[in-house]
């Protein structure tokens, strides 16, 4: 009896504990490496304190990356969330949810590498976007979107909006469908227009949708790496650098492991800044 209890404990708790331990060990190890002088292909573990952090933070690449990440969060998170909400509402109004959901979810389902490659074609000098612009007589707007430092970042941000919109729509579709239908009908009979129904009945009751979508989308924007890696490699110049890409460059291109680890730790701290207020708010709301 006793033995079987121990066995059950090991079967269920063992893997969880193992994963948790390894996970926190990795974080700890990463923090430790970020304070060593491991700056070449050869492992070196001499403790140097916070020196790497000062070096990294003072670099121009870090500054550009941070600003880009902040722009990315602002220009990606807000439109994706609100567009998701609005489109979800419109989709429900059409009553053809399955078709539209499939269409919008398709980009979310495909890999970011595939999406990145697709959009490289779309953005190319003779790619889809420019061809379209020329067709509708806006040829003057045509440009090499990803090679122009003024547009490259926003072109990439747009790709992530395109890719995550489906996710946002699903979240809000579920939230809206959770609202008692008669509430909406009551508002309609009370005289509310479509917009007023949205503003006074639906919006206040999809807060939990924001609670799910906002932190997850914010984190995706903070951690964004793949689309940059596939589409621009941070270029032109360093105009599309983001922290995760800078981390990769430092750690696996320059083999400055300690600097890469320092950026990783900074990313972790930034994630916490984004998540902790939301998590406490959510916990307080849901569990009093």
């Amino acid at each position: 009896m006793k033995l079987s209890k121990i066995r059950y404990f090991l079967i269920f708790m063992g893997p969880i504990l193992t994963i948790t331990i390894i996970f926190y060990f990795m974080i700890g190890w990463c923090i430790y490496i970020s304070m060593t002088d491991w700056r070449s292909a050869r492992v070196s573990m001499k403790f140097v304190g916070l020196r790497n952090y000062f070096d990294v933070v003072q670099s121009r690449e870090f500054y550009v990356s941070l600003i880009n990440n902040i722009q990315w969060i602002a220009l990606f998170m807000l439109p994706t969330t609100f567009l998701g909400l609005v489109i979800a509402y419109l989709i429900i109004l059409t009553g053809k949810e399955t078709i539209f959901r499939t269409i919008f979810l398709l980009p979310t389902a495909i890999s970011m590498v595939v999406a990145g490659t697709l959009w490289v074609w779309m953005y190319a000098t003779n790619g889809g976007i420019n061809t379209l612009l020329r067709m509708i007589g806006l040829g003057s707007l045509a440009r090499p979107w990803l090679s122009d430092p003024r547009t490259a970042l926003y072109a990439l941000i747009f790709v992530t909006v395109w890719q995550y919109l489906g996710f946002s729509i699903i979240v809000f579709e579920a939230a809206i469908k959770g609202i008692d239908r008669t509430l909406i009908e009551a508002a309609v009979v009370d005289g509310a227009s479509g917009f007023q129904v949205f503003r006074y009945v639906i919006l206040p009751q999809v807060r939990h949708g924001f609670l799910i979508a906002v932190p997850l989308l914010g984190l995706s924007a903070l951690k964004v790496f793949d689309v940059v890696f596939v589409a621009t490699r941070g270029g032109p110049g360093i105009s599309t650098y983001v922290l995760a890409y800078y981390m990769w460059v430092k750690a696996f291109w320059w083999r400055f492991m300690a600097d890469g680890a320092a950026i990783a730790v900074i990313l972790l701290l930034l994630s916490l800044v984004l998540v902790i207020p939301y998590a406490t708010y959510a916990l307080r709301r849901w569990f009093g």
Partner: protein
Amino acid sequence: MADVKLDHVTKIFGGRVVAVDNITLHIRDGEFFVLLGPSGCGKTTTLRIIAGLEKPTAGRVYIGGVDVTDLPPKDRDVAMVFQSYALYPHMTVYDNIAFPLKIRKMPKHEIDRRVREVARMLYIEDLLDRKPAQLSGGQQQRVALARALVRQPKVFLFDEPLSNLDAKLRIEARAFLKRLQKELKITTVYVTHDQAEAMTMADRIAVMNAGKVIQVGTPDDIYWKPTHVFVAGFIGAPSMNLVDVSYVEKEDKVYLQGPGFELDITPLASVVRPRLKHTELIMGVRPEHLEIVDRPVDPHCVPGEVYVIEPLGAETIVNVRVGDSIFKVRVLGAVKYNVGDKVYLHFDLNRVYIFDRKTGEAIII
């Protein structure tokens, strides 16, 4: 103030399900009109068509003489109270009541005045700061009512507003609502499946079944003069005894012959005979119109046996077995009979209903 007219209204869902089948109704100005019927009979759909929440597949809807068939709900000036009350959970009671005025961009002080007036009328003044989740069912129902009242609409629509209340509260609310409607004189369409609610509150009732209006009339008409076996069976508690019978004539007497019994209805023969299309009939008699007697007092008695006795205090329902049929008999107070006693059932021929078994229509009312 307005009347409501439905002119040959039909609603078909998904091309196949006929929810409302060619209904024509005229609800008069200031009237308390009840749509009564079992679930799925189309009464709620009819109400939603009046509200504008459903578009009729065919037919027209008029409110106050204006064709509103193609108007959205907000332009019809109707207010609706839902079965679930549909209170906005994120708003206070005050904001819930103020909502219809707020979206009409009424000045703030006017909204405040009206909300407080309605709240006073419905005894919910001290609840104005609460959220709906903090209210009891009865209080929520009043808030929903207040939200409908505050606008002073042309027409009130109620969709089973009392069905979520417990029995005691329901009876109180019934009287309260009726009184309120009489004071305000606002045309009211009220949907219910509860015949007691319909009988107690309505000026007129439309009994519906399978998407059709079977009979329209005052509660008295519906009770005393059912034109269809469905209405007869639906109204009254316990419901009317309905037994399949055949019309038989022998030796210049006329009988209704049921399974194991014969009832002499010779005095009715001159009325019944010309209206008969065939001899397959349904006989109906209300429990309160039957009498249990020890021996036959006239020719309109049939022998039976006491089967079950259901005492209810003020009255007793006695089930009497006659042939192969059970008749429920309503007796005031207690009864002296025991199960198994041989008795006679006395039929008052003025209160015996006869329906055509094929069409269900009344042959004598």
